[in-house]
């Protein structure tokens, strides 16, 4: 039930949309795939229907041509290279949360700081994996580095995340409007139920 809350579409600092590689979020969940313009969805649906028969066998084997290719490429790229974030530009968020993604097969260490010099950085992830969800960030600038977990490994250049929450005044106005609509709905139902009795 309920309308899903979704992650903000990742954008660069100048507002351009960033396409994240290998993004696989369970659909059907609020937090699932980002909404697309209607035409884009229809185009994708049409393209998918055309390839339906071809993907049938692969789907039953638990993968798809697209994801298999992407995984193969990602693994190939990751072989023997230092771990690095897949984001090509700085990130921004208006909800205080985002997902960090990287290419790596070996264990990695991800660190977070509030300055690009990574002073007073703290480790927020250590282990194997390719994604990390961070949330609850207040307004401000955040920097992340990733490095091989092996001792002495050099960290990647810091990835910048700018968090600027949405307008509080707009949020309060919309909350007030919602409360009014809800109160009116409850009033009509309860008044009607009382009269019915």
């Amino acid at each position, binding site marked *: *039930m309920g309308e899903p809350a979704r992650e903000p579409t990742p954008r660069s600092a100048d507002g351009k949309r960033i396409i994240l590689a290998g993004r696989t979020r369970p659909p059907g969940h609020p937090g699932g795939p980002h909404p697309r313009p209607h035409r884009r969805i229809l185009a994708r649906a049409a393209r998918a229907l055309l390839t339906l028969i071809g993907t049938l066998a692969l789907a039953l084997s638990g993968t798809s041509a697209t994801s298999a290719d992407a995984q193969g490429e990602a693994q190939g790229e990751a072989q023997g290279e230092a771990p690095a974030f897949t984001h090509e530009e700085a990130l921004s968020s208006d909800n205080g949360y985002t997902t960090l993604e990287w290419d790596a097969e070996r264990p990695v260490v991800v660190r977070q700081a509030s300055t690009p010099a990574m002073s007073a950085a703290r480790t927020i992830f250590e282990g194997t994996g390719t994604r990390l969800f961070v949330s*609850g960030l207040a307004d401000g600038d955040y920097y992340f580095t990733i490095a091989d977990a092996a001792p002495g490994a050099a960290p990647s250049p810091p990835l910048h995340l700018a968090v600027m929450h949405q307008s509080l005044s707009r949020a309060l106005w*919309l909350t007030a409007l919602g409360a009014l609509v809800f109160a009116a709905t409850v009033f009509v139902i309860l008044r009607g139920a009382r009269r019915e009795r």
Partner: protein
Amino acid sequence: MSVEQALLPPWLGWALLLGFSVLWIGLGVYWGRRNKSFEDHALAGRNIGLALGSATAAATWITSNTTMLAPQMALQLGVWGMLAYSTASLGLFLFAPMAGRIRQLMPTGYTSGDFFRLRYGRVAWGIFLAFTLFYSLTWLVSMAMAGGILLNTLSGIPYGWGMSVILAVCVAYTMRGGLGAVIGTDFIQSLIIVIGIVVVGFAVLAHVGVDEIHTNLSRERPELLNVLFPAALMAIFNNLLFGLGEVFHNNVWWSRAFAFREGVAGKAFALGGLIWFPIPFAAGFIALASGALDVPVPSADMVGPLVVAKVLGLGGAVGIFVIVFCSLASSIDSLLAATSDLLTEDVYRRLLRPSASPETLKATAQWITLGLGLFTWLVCLPRIGTLASVLFFAGPLVGAMIWPIVTGLYWRRASTTGAVGGMLLGAGVGLVSYFAIGFYVASLVATAVSMVWVLTCALLSRSRFDWSQLREAS
């Protein structure tokens, strides 16, 4: 730790899947033996009591979204996120008095489509059918997709097989047993889900104290405790109104109002809401504990299973697998049953074969259930994530139907012009706001616009509806 490995070995996942599949299909066959007519199949003979009624109301509303999304919303939007999700229970609470009214006005009704056709005429009925079928089919597709993905993530079962098995099982027992089987299995599923979530909640508390969780959140995720978190504030009433719209219009809930025994519907929905209300808090609390428990989260929707596996180990992973499977089944079966009944009654019977016998209608409903299952399977098979996002467009559509339904049930002066205009204007402006502003205002704007139009038309209307016209639904 590795955060992207399956929590269970595939053989154990398959064993659990097989065991529960046999159980649900067996129960569906058993409960389906008594169904002779369409009324038995679609409305369980209109004889569902309070215990089954309350359980099915709660279980149907506990979808995979509840067990997976409630933790996600808590992790994204904090304490307000948990509250926003729990407001969905208000849909059940407010539908309680409405269900009694529906039973009183339409003692022989079958679907929510009957109400729109008899109350507002064929134009409003057509708009309603388009809106509700869009909502129901996209919800069905998203649930089946989520099922395949979740089973794959939890146990490594390939997406195609997991999605196919869970869909096939639900289609099989819904076809055979109708609403009776759906409600019966819902009863068992709701017990499993509620007990499972309570056990998990206490297990988490045994591992980490509330003080520790609060300290961790204050230090690492301060915005989750912020009372003035803008996105979370906006989510509260938007989610609430989306939830109201979902419950008020959809035949999943109307069919239960018609199926419950006389005098049971109001109590059953209220009790169902009470059972459901604490679940988002328990599930959300699990997510807020992830930082204190040092559980890295690769994606927000996986926080629940990861925390449970960390706290309870293999036993917890088995538990979350069972809970997710029950959550999916209890919603997919209800959607299949309610949507097939809607198509059978509102399209086949009303438009194509008005003279069809009860036996023919029952057989038709079963074939439509199978057809819906096949349609869903074909759409889900390529695993196109963007298709599921279409579900989000349903927010303004269902929000725009709230006021035509509420006033149509209680006000004689509620008019067809108000209902048609309210649905079209509300949905239209809501969709525009979806793209122009964001998803977090779409349902709210749609409901507000629809409300203003419906109220204006009702105030200006000179017509007074004759309630006895609704009794023609049989």
